[in-house]
């Protein structure tokens, strides 16, 4: 590797990953906590995401409002997001100003205030965020399909949570969630950019090692039992356009079949980050006039999650007609070996996408922390070589194993005409 990564565990168990890159006077800092929507029980759905919002409301040392201003004043960019498996906070700053965010993140790891007034006002902000999503037919459909796909595993609810819980959760629920998961032992700090590793590490130790280690919180583990039999559902709502989403159970990111499935994905739906007009489903469904658009994607998760296809229907073709064409294409993948050249194509595409990503320091720091949430950084650095090792036989086998009709959920959004 051109830029080696230094990985260190602090005395309190917090992991630190550092990668020097001197192409621009910028540093990107990401702090990751192993907590996400999969750690939420019924009645508390959305608590991880709400906690993430509360982290912007201030500590004694960095009161709310001042945080935003302090970062913005230095020309920094910052944000946070909550996923199914993790919660992450990032700041990308002019290199000379990075100390501010290191101090800020160390402070808000344990000293966020969760002022009841702020909790109350954030409750309606998050409900508004959810209502914005509810305006989208695809959100409504996707939520229903996800819910039908997981009866037992906590991947069953949307990250933003259910409205009932957003109305009923209390300040104490949020605070206790925060104190449970926001501890050094449960955190990873990843930094990339224009710094010198030795002095950076020294500063990180000064700021973070005094924080008490905490306990590694247990993660919710309720494996989804195998589904037997296809599940179909419909969602009705305003509009003129019908959508279908089809979800198949998909293995987790460290499963041996993961990379063969990535090649399969690139064949069926195109490579992530590129146009997808010559992938098999686009040719079969859009070019042949069955749908307006088709896409598909998987996620890199700790536990098995989903591979989802979405079709945007044409007014002159039914969802059933389109679904049968999609099924035919999947069957072709199961019945025939793909040409070796198509694997080379998938590798070349991935190589290009990696090259584009390397221009962004934020992106580089992201990948270090992101992969450490479900695997380790070698998952990223060996990605291309693992992709290159996939054989046509592997792809055929995983197509047969994972795309089984009796394991899937098929959801259709049925528009109720111009008005509702």
């Amino acid at each position: 590797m051109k830029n080696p990564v230094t990985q260190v565990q602090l005395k309190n168990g917090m992991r630190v990953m550092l990668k020097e890159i001197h192409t621009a006077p910028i540093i990107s800092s990401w702090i990751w906590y192993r907590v996400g929507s999969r750690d939420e029980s019924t009645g508390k759905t959305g608590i991880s995401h709400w906690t993430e919002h509360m982290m912007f409301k201030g500590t004694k040392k960095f009161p709310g409002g001042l945080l935003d201003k302090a970062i913005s004043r230095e020309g920094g960019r910052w944000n946070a997001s909550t996923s199914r498996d993790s919660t992450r906070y990032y700041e990308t700053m002019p290199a000379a100003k990075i100390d501010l965010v290191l101090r800020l993140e160390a402070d808000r790891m344990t000293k966020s205030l969760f002022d009841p007034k702020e909790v109350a006002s954030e409750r309606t902000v998050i409900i508004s965020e959810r209502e914005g999503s509810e305006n989208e037919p695809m959100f409504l459909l996707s939520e229903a399909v996800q819910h039908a796909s997981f009866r037992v595993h906590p991947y069953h609810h949307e990250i933003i949570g259910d409205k009932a819980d957003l109305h009923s959760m209390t300040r104490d629920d949020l605070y206790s969630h925060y104190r449970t998961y926001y501890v050094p032992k449960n955190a990873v700090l990843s930094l990339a950019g224009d710094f010198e590793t030795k002095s950076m590490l020294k500063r990180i130790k000064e700021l973070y090692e005094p924080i008490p280690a905490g306990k590694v919180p247990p993660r919710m583990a309720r494996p989804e039992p195998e589904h037997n039999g296809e599940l179909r559902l419909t969602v009705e709502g305003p509009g003129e356009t019908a959508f279908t989403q089809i979800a198949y159970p998909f293995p987790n990111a460290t499963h041996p079949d993961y990379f063969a499935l990535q090649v399969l994905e690139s064949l069926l739906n195109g490579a992530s980050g590129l146009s997808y007009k010559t992938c098999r489903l686009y040719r079969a469904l859009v070019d042949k006039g069955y749908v307006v658009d088709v896409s598909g994607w998987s996620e890199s998760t700790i536990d098995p999650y989903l591979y989802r296809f979405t079709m945007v229907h044409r007014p002159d073709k039914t969802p059933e007609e389109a679904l049968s064409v999609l099924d035919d294409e999947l069957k072709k993948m199961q019945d025939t070996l793909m040409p070796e050249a198509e694997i080379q194509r998938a590798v070349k595409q991935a190589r290009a996408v990696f090259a584009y990503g390397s221009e962004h320091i934020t992106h580089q720091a992201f990948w270090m922390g992101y992969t450490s949430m479900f695997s380790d950084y070698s998952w990223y650095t060996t990605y291309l070589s693992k992709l290159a090792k996939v054989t046509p036989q592997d792809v055929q086998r995983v197509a047969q194993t994972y795309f089984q009709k009796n394991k899937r959920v098929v959801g259709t959004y049925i528009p109720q005409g111009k008005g509702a």
Partner: protein
Amino acid sequence: MAKGKSTQMSSMPSPEDVYQVTLSNGITVLARSNFNSPAVNLGGYLPSGAIFDTDDKLGLADFATSMLMRGTKKRTFDAIYNELETVGASLGFDSGVHNTNFGGRALVEELPLLLTILSESLQTPSFPKDEVERLRTQLLTGLALRAQDTSDMADLIYDQFLYADHPYGKPTDGYVETIRAITRKDLETYHRLHFGPRGLVLAIVGAMHPKKAVEAVEKALGGWQVPGQIEAPALPPLKPIKRTVRKHHVIPGKAQSDLVVGTVGPNRKNPDFMAASLGNSVLGQFGMMGRVGNVVREKSGLAYYAYSSLHSGIGPGSWEVNAGVNPKNLKKALDLIEKELQRFVKNGVTKEELADSQANYIGRLPLSLESNSGVVSAILNIHRYELGMDYYQRYESLIRKVTREDVVEVARKYINPERLVIATAGP
């Protein structure tokens, strides 16, 4: 600790490192090296857009532009994308009122391919009949989705009233009946009359010597000649807003309403621009969406997003506030926003607020210029608005010289709280 080895200046384009050439057919090429990644980005524009659309065929420029890569004299739609996708390259076009824009990226060894496809798409699109119909269905579905999108519809209504009887007041993607009315012949004619090398600007940034990049462009596009390429008509004058206009567009069954409140803003070349831009930062950008975000989101908990923006381009700009709120809170949010606008016009900004936004504008430069695509868009902006290739060397002083008095003056000049356009969409 953060004693950087890289220097801030090296990331900023300057007259010394942006190589500029005008080809014999009028195409301007701007090229700059960046050997930090093995990739190359290109971007550019030419003066072809919805300004040429007639009311009965509104959306023609957009339709024609979207057809450029759907088949050329040499290649089919599938062949074009197959070439690009096989090597992980991408290229795309879109069009606005004044210009057709394009952008693409590839591993550097694939630049010739990228330029070949760009050149064929620009010069010899073939508008295959079945592709026209396929795209028409997609555009009509896009319009059906737009009709259901509270944010899109609030924007559309806002533009209609802010820019009444003006090309900016018409949606560049047209309406269902106008998209249906466009024929294949219209698309061909539009392309023949409005695409050509005159006024075309192309920027390339990536892992290659600038002179090599220019040679590659010359090879791909240097021979393009279009005699009689039509000049765009001048923009008509804008009708002033005499009193506040309020329009609500009903979309039943939606959980959230969107609002747009605003007025006309300066264009990009106007000397008022920088003061207005910094003022806007205080009003609805800085930190958590500025003052607007503070009152609507932070203090009142009414919205997930509430911000202001200044859209300044070639013609009259728009200075506007956007938010998405629960339908029952629409009036409350509008009242808060109108109050903020009144306060902004009456008192302007504080010394501290202005200093914060100035520091933000200066500090964020390296971030916006770290990638090839960031540099491409920066140098295209410099060229488009004639800011001078030394713009980033002068940038800090341009920002610092804006005073509180400048800000309050432009706020009063452009924003009259009694003469706003207020557009909302939702149940």
